[in-house]
């Protein structure tokens, strides 16, 4: 056995005393074989993911060649005249995701603050557990509830209420069908709030106690201490949770397609029906007659993949930055 390492080494092999045994020794012990086998499986994941990206790229070739960059801002989706544009779907995807964040972030952050700062630990743990269960509910069940509860509610209560109070805003004008951008955003918000709560709560729990105690010592109220000393410290981690939730919202398919109205149009009103990338792929993939049509749908899949890829990457970076113990208040 080699002597204890002088520096901290995070790689897995350090646990086993580094490479002090010869290759032959390791082979005979069976370790190299085990190493290779597990490495192959790990490399398999790499292979799988590369294949996925490659398939998306290759199968969208027809559409990319024909439409080029115009694909992103063409507003028509016309299978008869074979003119396909991603604009309505990108719009719908972004609008529903952003509006759902507008609903979910304040709600989620408030709940996370309560659970991390104000509730007794055991209570907080049980409630956090229940909220994690919410995250496990399948999307299609949210869709089921969306169709039979949120849609009628939107039509009879929420819609008229918004129109009566905020009807002067263009986003609340126009006919209210029950299905539409707002309904989809509400359902999405319920689906992503558990992610915001669970990650934010964990991040808030890592904030050093000195932060809070210093503020309290200076005469701050509990809320002031929380809002001005604790939360800013966890700012990057909370941002990370928001990005995670956003990525989840972008890719959500079933619940959205059941309540959004399935109309590829860009509209200012939140009551209008819309469409998202995931929803149109789900509805039209098995019936895209014509190779250009199918290719356009796959190109949409590629766009969605890229969007979630970038967002997830940013989210990971932000969460890692906080966990590494470096939340600076400024």
């Amino acid at each position, binding site marked *: 056995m080699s002597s204890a390492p002088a520096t901290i080494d995070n*790689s897995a092999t350090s646990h*086993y005393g580094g490479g002090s045994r010869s290759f032959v020794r390791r082979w005979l012990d069976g*370790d190299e074989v085990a190493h290779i086998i597990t490495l192959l499986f790990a490399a398999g994941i790499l292979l799988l993911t590369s294949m996925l990206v490659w398939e998306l790229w290759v199968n969208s070739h027809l559409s990319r060649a024909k439409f080029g960059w115009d694909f992103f801002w063409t507003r028509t989706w016309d299978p008869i005249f074979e003119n396909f544009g991603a604009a309505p779907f990108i719009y719908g995807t972004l609008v529903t995701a952003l509006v759902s964040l507008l609903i979910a972030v304040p709600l989620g952050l408030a709940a996370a603050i309560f659970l991390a700062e104000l509730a007794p630990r055991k209570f907080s743990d049980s409630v956090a557990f229940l909220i994690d269960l919410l995250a496990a*509910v399948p*999307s299609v069940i949210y869709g089921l509830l969306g169709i039979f509860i949120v849609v009628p509610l939107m039509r009879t209560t929420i819609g008229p209420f918004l129109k009566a109070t905020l009807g002067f805003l263009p986003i609340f004008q126009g006919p209210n069908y029950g299905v539409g951008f707002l309904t989809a955003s509400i359902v999405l918000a319920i689906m992503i709030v558990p992610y915001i709560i669970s990650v934010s709560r964990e991040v808030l729990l890592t904030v050093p106690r000195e932060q809070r105690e210093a503020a309290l010592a200076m005469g701050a109220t509990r809320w002031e201490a929380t809002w001005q000393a604790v939360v800013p410290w966890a700012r990057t981690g909370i941002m990370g949770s928001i990005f995670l939730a956003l990525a989840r919202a972008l890719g959500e398919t079933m619940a959205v397609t059941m309540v959004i109205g399935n109309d590829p149009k860009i509209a200012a009103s939140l009551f209008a029906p819309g469409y998202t990338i995931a929803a149109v792929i*789900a509805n039209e993939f098995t019936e895209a007659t014509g190779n250009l049509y199918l290719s356009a749908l796959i190109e949409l899949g590629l766009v*969605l993949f890229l969007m979630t890829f970038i967002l997830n990457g940013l989210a990971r970076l932000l969460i890692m930055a906080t966990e590494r113990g470096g939340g600076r208040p400024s």
Partner: protein
Amino acid sequence: MNQLRMVWRKTLNYVMLTLTGVAALGVVSVLFLILGYLIFNGGSSLNLNFFTQLPKPVGETGGGMANAIVGSLKLLFLAAILGLPVGLMAGVYLAEFGGKTFSFVIRYTTDLLNGVPSIVIGIFAYSLAVLPVKHFSTFAGGVALAIMVIPITVRSTEEFLKSIPISMREGAMALGASKWKTIATVILPAASGGILTGMLLALARVAGETAPLLFTAFSNQFWSPGWGQPIASLPVMIYTYAIAPYDDWHRQAWAAGLVLLTLVLIANVGTRMLLSRGATRSA
């Protein structure tokens, strides 16, 4: 002046604390609302017919989802045997063997795969397992779900393996065990509770997935023998029935939702309880 400011700060404090409490309670109550609605609307339709009969032709009442329940089980079985070993092995690699850069690449790729929207996984599985053989099949559905199971399993396996204290490894090696023997006979069994629960949670997660099955497993109103035919599944049936106009189908959709959610929740709650019990045991 100072008095006013104090009052304002105190009121704000009280209001905000209450609001955050309300928010937390509100979110939790959604869970009970969901369960309540499912039980209320679906509970009455959960009769023996539901579990034993095949779907009836459109418009006729009665009929059940026996084939969808078995279908979901078969798909999960495939997802398990195709995806879990990969996840386990890769997790072992990352925790026990990996070098720095390659591990980073694998972890990043796994996270990437985890974040891919399920509909895109469906497209991928379609080109991988449906097009070459020119038909929809249980196998293709299983492949799609397996791809989704892998990243979840990798992460949980790695975490639990890493949580095993170094002392156990050093102890085994001091006794002369080779690395792989240590892993196989000491580390894995010690982490097995956590790893198994991670696997169960991964399966519970994909049990509710609908989108990737839409163009891989398709659907079937009969029994699906073997692995090469289209197959019905609970999530797809819920979707199909929910958007249709038939009231009987709506009732069945609620019932199916209740069954699905119950299974998912049992898996989640059960694994949590097992985990906490295991933690106190091995400590």
